């Protein structure tokens, strides 16, 4: 095996934080591809440019995603990275594993690939980095026969992912892992055979802490919430105070709706005014607990800046109950995709299409009424459309008022 001199990246083996260079060297000990990847990376560090080409048409028969094609411009100098495709393996919900399952993944990968991985890619998938085109069918056969399918890429439903939720978090308002699994299974076709205008992502968080950043990076953000009161355990409140928490400064004054009061003995919450931001609960988890109906808020549209600026997801459905078999949610998703499919130009994410066509068109199609929970504030300009139906309904309402003698605004 060729020995590369790698002084620049060697420097990244120093210091307390675990080093990816050490990892690459570990893999390079008995893997030619990983070894060439090291030399290749050193070259990037010395010239300050990358040498990866724009991918290529690679994949497994019948699927349109799950493999990211990658070739180097320097294939002759570094033959081990001439082909260096990524295989995306669909992760289990919540990234839980047994050692047996993980070792099986490793053994197959060592046989066919570079021995390098990302645990995990930012999409959520197990990312297996670096494999040749002619190995792809074998890799797929080995994994799929043992119960592991590919994740997604391209203009398709991307691999859904979720927070740790009810498996190890007291704040989960719905079963994020269960719903994640159910959606992934329900939409296998949409994941593996790209039929959309562009990518579409689901990310599932069990509460407003949003540990998977769904609000910032998924076309459909499903964020857990509740409708009842916050139950207070006054004895635990006392304990927090005794242990040094300044409840007035840290909790009462930081509540965004100013709905908490505390007289040094007892804590009170005006639940009707709470906007469920999670601050007090997250800081006093032993003392405070949501109660009542549990479910989620559905938000749509977030994306990174390309092309005309980033978006955060917008609230569409303020509250939905989420219980197996999740029929209402699945129907809603299909309607959303129908509308998107009908209206999107190539490479338009759903948030961009909503901006172009208007929220009204979108909401009417999917059958969601307008609600003040969907907006931060009403529009500021008077340039709005009135349909004949709108006017007719205003007139009907007024006729009704004339009859009852009572205004209804």
């Amino acid at each position, binding site marked *: 095996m060729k020995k590369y001199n790698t002084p620049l990246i060697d420097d990244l083996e120093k210091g307390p934080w675990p080093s990816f260079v050490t990892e690459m060297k570990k893999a390079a000990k008995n893997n030619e591809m990983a070894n060439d990847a090291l030399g290749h990376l050193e070259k990037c560090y010395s010239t300050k440019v990358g040498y990866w080409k*724009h*991918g290529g*048409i690679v*994949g497994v*028969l*019948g*699927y*349109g*995603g799950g493999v990211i*094609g990658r070739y180097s411009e320097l294939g002759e100098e570094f033959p081990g990275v001439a082909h260096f495709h990524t295989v995306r393996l669909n992760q289990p919900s919540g990234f839980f594993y047994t050692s047996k399952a993980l070792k099986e993944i490793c053994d197959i990968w060592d046989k066919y690939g570079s021995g390098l991985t990302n645990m995990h890619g930012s999409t959520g998938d197990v990312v297996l980095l670096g494999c040749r*085109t*002619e190995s792809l*069918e074998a890799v797929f056969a080995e994994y799929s026969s043992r119960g592991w399918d590919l994740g997604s*890429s*391209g*203009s*398709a439903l991307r691999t859904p992912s979720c927070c740790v939720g009810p498996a190890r978090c007291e704040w989960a308002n719905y079963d994020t892992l269960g719903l994640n699994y159910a959606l992934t299974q329900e939409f296998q076709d949409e994941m593996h*055979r*790209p*039929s959309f*205008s*562009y990518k579409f992502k689901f990310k599932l968080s069990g509460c407003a802490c949003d540990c998977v950043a769904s609000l910032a990076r998924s076309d459909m953000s499903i964020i857990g919430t509740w409708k009842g009161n916050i139950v207070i355990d006054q004895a635990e409140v006392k304990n927090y105070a005794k242990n040094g928490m300044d409840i007035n400064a840290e909790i009462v004054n930081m509540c965004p709706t100013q709905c908490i009061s505390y007289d040094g003995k007892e804590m009170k919450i005006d639940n009707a005014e709470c906007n469920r931001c999670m601050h007090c609960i997250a800081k006093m988890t032993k003392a405070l607990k949501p109660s009542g109906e549990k479910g989620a808020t559905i938000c749509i549209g977030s994306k990174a800046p390309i092309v005309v600026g980033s978006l955060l997801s917008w609230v569409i459905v303020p509250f939905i109950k989420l219980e197996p078999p999740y029929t209402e949610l699945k129907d809603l998703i299909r309607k959303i995709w129908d509308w998107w*499919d009908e209206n999107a130009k*190539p*490479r338009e994410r759903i948030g961009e299409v909503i901006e172009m066509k208007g929220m009204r068109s979108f909401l009417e199609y999917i059958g969601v009424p307008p609600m003040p929970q969907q907006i931060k504030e009403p529009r500021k300009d008077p340039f709005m459309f009135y349909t004949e139906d709108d006017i007719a309904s205003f007139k009907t309402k007024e006729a009704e008022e004339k009859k009852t003698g009572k205004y209804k605004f």
Partner: protein
Amino acid sequence: METAELQDKIFAFVQAAQGKKKLKEKDIINGMNAETGIDKDVVKKAMRGMIDVGRLMYSYGGGASSVEIPSEEYLREKGLIK
């Protein structure tokens, strides 16, 4: 129409666009539906059948996925021709 005949038509449709326009699944389904009046789900199924055996393939470029006629190189790699 027989599935085989429909698949030949789909193939001709994709061939006609080759080098001119990258077709998405939807373009093919809508195009065939307009040309032959055949139900979109039927077209989709026939097209998927072709992709499963390598007569057509999914491709990716320009930031989006498309459906194309596979190259000889691809077919050889998949062991579909020698």
